[in-house]
């Protein structure tokens, strides 16, 4: 049965956010969280993990026509759980073990029984780490913000 259009979109957004959290984590963070979560990590590797390139694109003037800026290394993997559930992962860099683990976590996220555990024990802590790191960086940058003031010249 096809899920309703709106619901499908919502599911996509949540899965996209989870996959982004896996991709943004370091290999060590992901391994540690996966280990602590005690999730069943048994899986069969369908593709990869393999490293390749993506061509990074920008826009002329920031918002105009597209142009190719350069390449970046990306690693991808696809795994299948014993249940048959498939999981995919893509991340910048060349950490193959991290990406294979991310693909397993994606497959576990896609399985109804394990999704709450993955959300609670992996996605949420990673999102919190990322938010904290961003907030710190933002505050450090904000401290270099220029507050202009005008000297009173005393002419009147």
């Amino acid at each position, binding site marked *: 049965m096809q899920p309703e259009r709106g619901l*499908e979109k919502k599911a*996509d*957004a949540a*899965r*996209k956010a989870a*996959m*982004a959290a896996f*991709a*943004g984590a370091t290999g060590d963070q992901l391994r540690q969280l996966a280990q602590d979560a005690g999730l069943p990590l048994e899986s069969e590797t369908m593709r990869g993990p*393999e*490293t*390749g*390139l*993506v*061509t*990074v*694109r*920008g*826009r*002329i*003037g*920031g*918002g*105009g*026509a*597209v*142009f*190719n*800026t*350069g*390449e*970046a*290394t*990306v690693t*991808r993997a*696809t795994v299948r759980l014993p249940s048959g559930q498939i999981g*995919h992962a*893509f*991340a*910048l*860099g*060349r950490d193959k073990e991290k990406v294979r683990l991310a693909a397993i976590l994606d497959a576990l996220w896609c399985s109804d029984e394990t999704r709450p555990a993955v959300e609670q024990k992996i996605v949420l802590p990673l999102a919190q780490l990322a938010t904290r790191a*961003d907030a*710190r*960086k*933002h*505050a*450090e*940058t*904000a*401290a*270099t*913000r*220029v507050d*202009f003031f005008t000297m009173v010249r005393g002419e009147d």
Partner: protein
Amino acid sequence: MYVAVKGGEAAIRNAHRLLADRRRGDRSVPALRLDQIVEQLGLGVDRVMSEGSLYDRELAALAIVQARGDLIEAIFLVRAYRTTLPRFGYTRPVDTAAMHAERRISATYKDLPGGQMLGPTFDYTHRLLDPELATGAPVEEPEQRDIEPEAMPRVSDLLAGEDLIESDGDLPAGHVTGDITREPLEFPLERDARLQALSRGDEGFLLALAYSTQRGYARSHPFVGEIRIGEVELELDVPELDFPVTLGRIRVTECQMVNQFKGSAKQPPQFTRGYGLVFGQSERKAMAMSLCDRALRARELGEDITAAAQDEEFVISHSDNVQATGFVEHLKLPHYVDFQAELDLVRRMRADHEAENVTDATTKEAAE
């Protein structure tokens, strides 16, 4: 005649072994780790990524060590590595307006939405060597300031409302984005292919050309509308998913240069623009790129082409330092047979020359 010459294998082997030794240097000094280079020589790493045209900080650091700090050699290594990898596709265009900015300044507006943030800049330092750095003294944590994150619209969008500045560069509908890594260069180029070449171009070369435009060779009265440095998210469309997958973030530097334009019969006077976008924190390069981009738009804007910086074929054909170093440095490789042929030619020419002189002298004597 082709003469195969063999020999030198032992010399080459020993030279490479010597290179490895000299690269390591004094063994009583600890060997550099890649994370030290990534963390502490970050702008050198950025330059290798930008001109090597490959975003991967650790690979760039490895290349720097392997090249003993010779950045052009490191860029060469990175370019060679790139060719060994399969290509998964093209990302969605990065959205620099949504950048997690670490620096953002404008030389045209004092007060602009999002504010001016200096970030980790060399500007306003006194350029005095700091002996304390050599002692490894502890470094203070940065100051923090609690401000609500504010949207940071691009400066070019602020001016756009009054039509005083041209829009972001558009290309004709149906235009297929050029890719200089896939198709051979064919002049004239469209602006997209030119920007790709400039983004990986040699910083020194682009800097010199940019400087030449300021000194009067294709003057364009530039202002830095905005420079921003920070992380942008990369997204890739893949067949196995119904949504673009997030790959992570990369750090880029963007420069919006705003330039004078007197207008033409068709267009009223308005500001024109040059654009720079490069990997990493590379402000000088992004500025030079945007000045070169503007100069190279001479044909499009109906300006007279009088200077080197406006000559697309000249600029783009010579901006790639891997190509340049390859052709210049190949001169040191054996050219023994070539040179023997030239030597023979010069000998014959001299013999002819002397024979002519003798004949001339004899004829002259006879006439007298």
